[in-house]
């Protein structure tokens, strides 16, 4: 009986991948557990093992094919004596075994030409940071972060990267891919799994004259190290009467990835943004990622740089040449509008932009403000927008209590009360630990539909 081999999901966030290489050819006998192909995810090249035994009857997706969706049939395994041309009827109610497709030509398989998602067209480009006509290139957030680190490491020999798997493994999320080769083990330092220890060593190294970039595999693990981020890094300049600053960047993915549940899905933006002495960035676009990370590395203060795993693989336009930096405390307008201001940051901007698109169909013009840095916050841009639209909705993934949205709502109330035509509504993640079940997770996170509903409520529509 023929069995389809399906494109596997090889990471929590993988939706598609590249079938890099077949290690078996048609007609080969395949054993259960045998490595039959190499599949490239956005994070790594993975070996793919056969689950079933049989003879590889037909390869449906040739090697080198990019953009193969998870669960796409990529090959067919036959039993002894069967051949591809056999029209063995499928047993009734056979689960994922669809023999009818066995002979289907590969052209039926959905294959996309380009390896990466198309650039997000309306993602604030060209934006206010650069004059119109600046040449740009399309790159992923991941590539932008890597390029930012590489450029700063080339420019300043005291900049180094340390963290778990940043070197030989090439980065748990491939952000540091290639850096070890270029800069060597002195400047790309693999650490043991010991967040508190290496965060403290990083801060000490900053006091000793270096500019460390400390990578947390995810910010969930920064809880182990938060004493050094706050008590050692953020407060020492003050406690020393201005003698000793801590020029250090703590960076890594923050917030929910996909299906990794409560301990691995939390947005710490509001936590870190509460601390005087820290600077806090949360980029959305690849241009944000590059420009802000370069600024962060040069900043003489400790910077918490909150990335997002789901955004890593998204593509945006980034200036093609020159030394591109984005100043802290300067929001960008991702989409101009006149009826309502939607303020967000990080992946929240993605929901805000989708909602704005949807709202436009209903004739509601939403202005989307991307804060980019949460400490300092660009109050002026937010207030100017609210004074123009008279309505405001905030969007973030974090918990509702003590959120960035709460802080903005209070600021807007105190500084622009007379301009408001409706109360500010804060859209946040739900007030629950992140559940694992796919349906519950979707419900726990903020969605564009919730943003649309919030905007309609403040527009009394």
């Amino acid at each position, binding site marked *: 009986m023929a069995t389809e081999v399906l494109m596997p999901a090889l990471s929590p966030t993988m939706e598609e991948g590249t079938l890099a290489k077949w290690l078996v050819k048609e007609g080969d006998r395949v054993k259960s557990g045998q490595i039959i192909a190499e599949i490239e995810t956005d994070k790594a090249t993975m070996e793919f093992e056969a689950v079933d035994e049989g003879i590889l009857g037909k390869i449906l997706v040739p090697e080198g094919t990019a953009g193969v969706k998870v669960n796409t049939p990529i090959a067919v395994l036959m039993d002894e004596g069967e051949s591809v041309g056999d029209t063995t009827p499928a047993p009734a109610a056979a689960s994922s075994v669809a023999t009818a497709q066995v002979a289907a030509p590969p052209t039926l398989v959905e294959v996309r030409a380009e390896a990466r998602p198309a650039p997000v067209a309306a993602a604030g480009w060209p934006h206010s940071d650069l004059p119109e006509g600046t040449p740009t290139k399309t790159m992923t957030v991941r590539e932008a972060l890597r390029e930012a680190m590489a450029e700063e490491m080339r420019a300043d020999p005291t900049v180094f990267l340390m963290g778990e798997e940043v070197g030989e493994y090439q980065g748990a999320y491939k952000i540091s891919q290639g850096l070890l080769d270029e800069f060597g083990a002195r400047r790309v330092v693999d650490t043991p799994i010991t967040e508190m220890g290496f965060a*403290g060593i990083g801060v000490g190294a900053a006091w000793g004259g270096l500019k460390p970039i400390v990578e947390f595999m995810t910010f969930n693990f920064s809880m182990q190290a938060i004493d050094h981020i706050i008590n050692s890094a953020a407060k020492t300049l003050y406690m020393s009467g201005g003698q000793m600053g801590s020029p250090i960047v703590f960076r890594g993915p923050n917030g929910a990835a996909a299906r990794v549940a409560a301990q691995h899905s939390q947005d710490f933006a509001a936590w870190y943004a509460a601390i005087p002495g820290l600077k806090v960035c949360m980029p959305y676009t690849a241009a944000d990622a590059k420009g802000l990370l370069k600024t962060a590395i040069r900043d003489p203060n400790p910077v918490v740089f909150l990335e997002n795993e789901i955004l890593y693989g998204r593509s945006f336009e980034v200036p093609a040449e020159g030394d591109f930096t984005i100043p802290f405390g300067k929001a960008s307008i991702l989409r101009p509008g006149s009826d309502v201001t939607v303020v967000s940051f990080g992946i929240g901007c993605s929901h805000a932009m989708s909602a704005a698109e949807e709202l436009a169909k209903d004739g509601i013009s939403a202005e989307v403000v991307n804060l980019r840095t949460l400490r300092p916050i660009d109050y002026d841009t937010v207030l100017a927008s609210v004074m123009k639209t008279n309505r405001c909705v905030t969007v973030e993934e974090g918990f509702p209590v003590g959120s960035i949205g709460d802080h903005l709502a209070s600021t807007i109330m105190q500084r622009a009360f007379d301009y408001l035509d409706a109360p500010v509504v804060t859209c946040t993640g739900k007030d629950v630990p992140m559940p694992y079940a796919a349906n519950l997770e979707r419900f726990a996170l903020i969605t564009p539909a919730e943003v649309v509903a919030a905007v309609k409520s403040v527009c009394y529509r």
Partner: protein
Amino acid sequence: MAKKPETRPNVSKEELLKYYREMLLIRRFEEKAGQLYGMGLIGGFCHLYIGQEAVVVGLEAAAKPGDKRITSYRDHGHMLACGMDPKGVMAELTGRIGGYSKGKGGSMHMFSKEKHFYGGHGIVGAQVPLGAGLAFADKYLGNDNVTFTYFGDGAANQGQVYETYNMAELWALPVVFVIENNQYAMGTSVKRSTKSTTLYGRGLAYGIPGEQVDGMDVLAVKAAGEKAVAHCRAGNGPYILEMMTYRYRGHSMSDPAKYRTREEVEKIKTEKDCIEHVRDLLTQGGLASDEELKAIDREIKAIVNESAEFAKESPEPPLDELWTDIYA
């Protein structure tokens, strides 16, 4: 604790007088700080170093210019020993603008970049990875500086100490871990907090050599410090010195020290005092007369009084200091 050396060591009068002067400065300074605390001029926490003076004075004698030091909140002695100005330290204790941190740090959080003193840390054990980080920077920059990273027997039970041991040895960082074992973590004796009471021995699990030292004997401390420093400077990685010492006063100012007997304290003061030890070496060896030593006593007293006067007269920080030094 090891016994005092029976024979007079081969050490010059000048060297002994230097140690005598430096240890005495710390003791008189701390006594004065205790007095000012009682007068309400110093607030909050104030952890005195009285009894432990030989540790910092002996180790500073083994240091060279460029070496760094970092410690816990019981930090006044370390600051005086590395040459920071007693006036600036005392004025920080009184929370005045003339203090090392302009009055914004206080007893537990003082720094001097000029003297390579990196604090002054209020979170027990946090200074250990920070100290290793300073050593990381020196190794990265390719100089031969060593960082003295001090912590107590209480901090020795913090997990981050062992995270740091692991990386310091793995990367051969030039750091001397100095465990100031004064027998009590606040009110909990070493025996009540751990079954493995030879604290230096824990480094062996990570491949770090170490030894226990009579921390009441400044000459023993210096000799051990020189050995440790030579190990680090030669690129051999970290070294652990467990200084067996004793704090005469309570943990902080409000500690009645009911967890130990009066007799225990008196016995150490009488038999092991680090300043008396050097005084004995000087007088019994005929190296210095009572008069000479009394002159030093007077000189130290004058320095301490001057620091107290400065600390009282220095104004409180102006209110706009509230908003400065948050960002560089």
